[in-house]
């Protein structure tokens, strides 16, 4: 596998791989995301307790799950970059960070908009919302650390260390927040936390998760390409690429 993977550590090859993969991801992301949203909004049955406000789950849960997933992916690429000294891995890390931050924001926002009709207030210090908020802080920390360095090679390494520190902490944060929540609040909120998911609700939910994951992947591929271009802008292969694109 290493033999197969290794050439893609070279930025030019990674760029070309992205170029080849992008159309497939865009098409499949569009299809599955639309399918998930339409199914969730139009065809899935409404919850007997929460009525149609329950449909927010089809964007809230995917974004909550994938915000954590994007952070782990970011930390894994940081780890690859730090251990094997792969520059492309740092570029992947920093291409992912804003996507993860936006998805975390979506999870927070939809959580608040779901909380308003259910709990009566926009914000409740419930376990999931609190850990999402902390996750957003972690993302912003990595992004601003990267942005403060002039030398982007150094920036990648520094932000990578911070991403790994964050990912070691993430389970502890999650556990502590959950524990803190049960300590300070009764079971009044957890009633809504895990709606009993019937199969005809589960399928659209799974498709929404897949759809959002593919949308994020497509944006990530394009952002990775941009990052590679930005860092290698004076390299001959980029110059040739642009000249070729212009000629067409």
């Amino acid at each position, binding site marked *: 596998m290493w033999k197969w993977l290794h050439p893609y550590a070279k930025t030019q090859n990674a760029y070309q791989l992205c170029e080849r993969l992008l159309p497939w991801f865009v098409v499949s992301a569009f299809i599955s995301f639309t399918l998930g*949203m339409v199914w969730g*909004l*139009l*065809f*899935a*049955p*409404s919850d007997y307790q929460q*009525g*149609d*406000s329950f*449909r*927010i789950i089809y*964007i*809230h849960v995917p*974004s909550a799950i994938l915000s954590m997933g994007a952070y782990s992916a970011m930390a894994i690429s940081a780890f690859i970059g730090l251990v094997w000294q792969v520059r492309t891995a740092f570029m992947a890390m920093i291409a992912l960070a*804003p*996507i993860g931050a*936006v998805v975390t*924001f*979506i999870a927070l*926002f*939809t959580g608040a*908009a*779901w909380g*308003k*009709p259910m709990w009566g207030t926009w914000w409740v210090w419930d376990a999931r919302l609190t850990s999402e908020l902390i996750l957003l802080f972690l993302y912003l920390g990595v992004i601003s650390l990267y942005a403060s360095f002039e030398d982007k090679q150094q920036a990648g390494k520094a932000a990578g260390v911070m991403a790994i520190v964050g990912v070691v902490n993430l389970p502890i944060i999650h556990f502590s927040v959950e524990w803190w929540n049960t300590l300070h609040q009764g079971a009044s909120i957890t009633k809504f936390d895990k709606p009993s998911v019937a199969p005809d609700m589960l399928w659209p939910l799974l498709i929404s998760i897949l759809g959002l994951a593919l*949308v994020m992947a*497509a*944006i990530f591929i*394009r*952002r990775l*390409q*941009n990052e590679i*271009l*930005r860092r290698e*802008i004076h390299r001959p292969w*980029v*110059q040739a690429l*642009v*000249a070729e*694109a*212009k000629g067409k």
Partner: protein
Amino acid sequence: MQFESFSAFVDMGGYGFYVWLSFGVSLLALGILAFEAVRQKKVLFNAVEKEQARKVRIKASKTSATSQVKSSYSEAQASPRNEEMKQ
């Protein structure tokens, strides 16, 4: 299909505002992210193109400058540099 009419679909059983607000903001946020990614690539390509065009111009002005040196020394000293800086 869970809804009988389009207006029932928009109303979402009374929760329309919250449902459409959260879906709208989510789609908007993802849309901005995607748009930004697409736009950035164009910006980068344009930057490279500009630089290439500039290199071509520098080359052209240099060759013309050396030819002018042969005819009139003083003119060549003033014009090509200034032109380059204006652009």
